[in-house]
């Protein structure tokens, strides 16, 4: 993987209000960036901005590699069995069923593969959301509160998956309240803009 992600002097305006401004970061192979700060400070907006879902008000953003985003929306068809629902996105990403079973394996969800998404619990849905990112084969992971609703065992699996992704040269950007075991990650503390 030759992933890179850099932004400088990044600003975001939503609803006529400055959410943040002057944000800088440079990430290379295997780097991780942890976004911290109080609610409503723009962590999710920054992730959506990097993902291309929001326009930047000012500043520059460059990246190399494919992106994958995990936010609070599952984007999985509730009626389909989990593996099929994930398979839809894996097919679009060009990775296929092998990547899906590997992702389910990594998050200890293999036995849920045939269970319809609507029957999954909140925490399982959260893990399914992360499995979609794992199965995407993307170079840059954008994770919005990935630890929400996860039990201790699942949290450990998530940390291991992130570590494995970074070891392969991938980049992770995480917005999280919970302390996640990210080895030598850069931290970007967002503050409320006046």
């Amino acid at each position, binding site marked *: 993987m030759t992933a890179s992600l850099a932004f400088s002097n990044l600003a975001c305006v939503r609803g006529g209000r400055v959410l943040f401004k002057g944000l800088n970061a440079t990430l290379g192979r295997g780097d991780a960036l942890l976004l911290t700060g109080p609610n409503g400070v723009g962590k999710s907006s920054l992730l959506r901005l990097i993902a291309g879902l929001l326009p930047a008000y000012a500043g520059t953003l460059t990246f190399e590699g494919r992106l994958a*985003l995990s936010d609070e*929306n599952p984007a999985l068809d509730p009626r389909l069995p989990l593996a099929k629902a994930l398979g*839809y996105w894996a097919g679009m990403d060009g990775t296929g069923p092998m990547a899906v079973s590997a992702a389910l394996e990594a998050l200890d969800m293999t036995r849920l593969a045939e269970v319809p998404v609507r029957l999954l619990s909140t925490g399982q849905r959260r893990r399914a959301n992360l499995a979609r990112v794992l199965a995407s084969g993307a170079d840059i992971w954008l994770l919005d509160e990935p630890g929400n609703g996860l039990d201790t065992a699942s949290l450990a699996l998530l940390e291991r998956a992130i570590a494995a992704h970074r070891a392969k040269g991938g980049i992770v950007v995480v917005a999280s309240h919970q302390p996640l075991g990210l080895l030598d990650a850069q931290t970007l503390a967002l503050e409320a803009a006046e």
Partner: protein
Amino acid sequence: MKAFLAILGRDLRLSLGSGGIGLPVVFFLLVATLYPFAVGPDGALLAKTGGGVLWVAALLAALLPIDRLIAPDAEAGVLDQYAVRGVGEEMIAAAKITAHWIGFGPPLMLAAIPASAMLRLDGETLAAVELGLLAGTPGLAALGVMVASLTAGLRRGGALAGLLMLPLAIPLIIFGAGSIGDFGGGALRFLAASSLFLVAVAPFAAGAGIRALRE
């Protein structure tokens, strides 16, 4: 192209699974059944007005699935995931229009056959209705997806969608119903032209609507 086919396949599967195809057809047949009860069993009157009734029924049937077209995908984050993967909004809209048309155009054309029997339409009129539906339903599908994407972000968007869509469908219904008694084919050509215009414009309008949903 791969994304287009994937989205088309998914939307078709969803409309098949949720009874999205059956509902407009049942509604269409219901109108055709109720109309003779309302105006009486006068065969000549039914045959004279039946074609127009089928067009009104087709238009209202096209309205039924509108709140399923865009809003659930927007809420579930599916549209965001397309965007992260770099799938163009116009492409999404075009795929959704195609899927929506397959889901209600051909089924309505099939349903028009029993409906025409209930309305005492002769074979010639039925042929004109079928030809008109073939030309007009793509326009209705395009209009449906366009209006659905513009109202997806609103509460009670479904009711507003009807108010928005029906006036825009007036050319289709005028030329559609007009094509029945008109053997010169002029109305059918106007119908096809209005339908083509909507099909050409809708992906861009709906694409802009989908982009605006992210804000």
